[in-house]
């Protein structure tokens, strides 16, 4: 009986926690399906209205910005390119950096690693102007390349992959060598499949990181053609319901990525065990 009470109690607390997180999102979603006059008169809504298609289609296709050149659809496209680029590029570079640090006979590899690692203490905001001038010099302002590359070196991902490689037993490498595998084959046939779970986790993490960038895209794009969703949240003008609709849509891509990739993620975790 006491067990029942304590477990109901903890469930209650969890439910309250979920409600605190979900209700505001729901209210924004519900409100975004009403007309603006309805919201202006009656405040936020808890139940769905009937302007869903009308509001969302308008937001997606409305030509916004100062020069009326950019649609939300284009922003989603830009954000997707940027987030995917950041995710893939940072995972690839971290994988290779960690491989070199652990498996190549580099003098002072540990020191090198810590130098890479302390860049975590230097946030993008701190180096944003020098980085910007480099991009400007290279004529890469207003390009996907400029959006993606400067934020795609991830010390954290390098740390994770390095720590993982260090746990791979030496005999595996030696065995593979005797089986005729060269450095490249060991990387492709062993380390990548063995770290699949971690690669997927890092892809998700870096995708969300790239998607959420605000300051950097703001700085490195002057043409509205390169606006991203997170920038657009501020830039888009319009009525309150349209802004709500945009907020709701802006949450969808990260959630989608997690749903799509988590299958591999969980499978990987259990296969490794």
């Amino acid at each position, binding site marked *: 009986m006491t067990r029942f009470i304590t477990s109901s109690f903890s469930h209650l607390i969890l439910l309250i926690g979920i409600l605190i997180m979900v209700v505001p999102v729901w209210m924004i979603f519900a409100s975004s399906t009403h007309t603006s006059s309805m919201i202006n008169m009656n405040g936020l809504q808890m139940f769905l209205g009937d302007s869903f298609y009308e509001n969302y289609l308008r937001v997606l296709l409305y030509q916004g910005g100062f020069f009326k050149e950019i649609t939300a659809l284009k922003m989603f496209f830009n954000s997707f390119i940027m987030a995917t680029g950041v995710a893939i590029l940072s995972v690839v570079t971290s994988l290779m950096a960690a491989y070199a640090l652990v498996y190549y006979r580099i003098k002072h590899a540990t020191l090198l690693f810590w130098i890479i690692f302390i860049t975590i203490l230097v946030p993008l905001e701190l180096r944003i102007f020098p980085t910007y001038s480099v991009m400007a010099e290279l004529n890469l302002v207003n390009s996907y390349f400029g959006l993606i590359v400067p934020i795609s070196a991830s010390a954290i991902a390098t740390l994770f992959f390095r720590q993982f490689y260090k746990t791979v037993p030496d005999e595996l490498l030696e065995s593979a060598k*005797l089986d005729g595998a060269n450095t490249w084959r060991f990387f492709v046939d062993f380390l990548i499949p063995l770290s699949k779970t971690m690669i997927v986790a890092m892809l998700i993490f870096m995708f969300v990181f790239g998607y959420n960038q605000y300051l950097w895209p703001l700085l490195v794009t002057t043409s509205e053609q390169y606006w991203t969703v997170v920038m657009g949240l501020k830039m888009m003008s319009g009525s309150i319901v349209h802004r709500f609709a945009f907020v709701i849509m802006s949450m969808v891509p990260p959630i989608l990525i997690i749903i799509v990739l988590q299958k591999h993620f969980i499978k990987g975790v259990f296969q490794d065990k």
Partner: protein
Amino acid sequence: MSFLDLKNVTKIYPNGTKAVHETSLSIDEGEFMVFVGPSGCGKSTLLRMVAGLEDITEGDINLDGKLMNEVDPSERDVAMVFQNYALYPHMNVYNNLAYGLKNRGIDKETIEQKVNDAAKLLQISDYLQRKPSMLSGGQRQRVAMGRAIVRNPKIFLFDEPLSNLDAKLRIQMRLEIKKLQQKVGVTSIFVTHDQVEAMTLADRLAVINNGIIEQLGTPIEIYDNPKSLFVAGFIGSPQMNFLDGNLKNKTLSAEGFEIKDINSDFEGEVTLGIRPEHLSQSENGLISLRVELVEQLGSDNLVYGQLKNKKDFCYRCPGNQTIEKGSNLSLNIDNNKYYIFDKSTGKRVN
């Protein structure tokens, strides 16, 4: 030149540890060579230099007439079975066996045939689709062997491959390895610290101590004719008994008895070695043993006790003799089956 030739091979690790000292050794094609010695004596280092996994500090290694010193392990055509097997955890058994063949660019059908043949030989055909984590210790051991066999390498290298198995399985796998090697006929080097394993597997045996080969020979040669105190103590179970003594004018005086007409001109402090199985009971024997403990193995009895001077001593007798705890035995050494070593250098002198 023989099939595998080590010439004055020395290994000094970057931290200064001298693991192997100027070792020379020749192994013939098809021979089963065992490196045996206590932990840390440099067996693995020597083996790993043959494999190419460790650089050679000095000396030459020739395999099949080719100098190996600078050849990458992937190019040496050697196969190794590791202590913890080092199976590829993300590949199923089939791919574990096939991986080395794929890297050599062999076509798919040939690979399939070779893998299936090896699997049949090792009785692992039923597990080909399983991952290593779903296999028992003995099965993993077989897969590791299969991975070596399937490539038909120039030489098999085994680094204590049986030490992770339980006692019964170890004996079974020991037999299987020996049979397999005889069937396949590949030159092999097997590293172990277990002298029983070494004796049963070896065509020839290298007893290694402190990075030096103390003695090289067939198991029987080494058992019958140990050249040093170390070899005498290391080979044979239970261990050889050692007694202090003095040798002068071909007469050995140990504590409590003398042996005359010894075939040696050495004079000075010596150690007398007698194997427990080279003793028999007789009236007025040389050695008087006070029995403290009897281990009955069935076929044999191992009798442990003390001599008059309180030295521990062991005697092995047939299992049908009854020996009482607390009794006194009078023992004689079987004809000339004793070994005398210079006490200061450990070298055999008789």
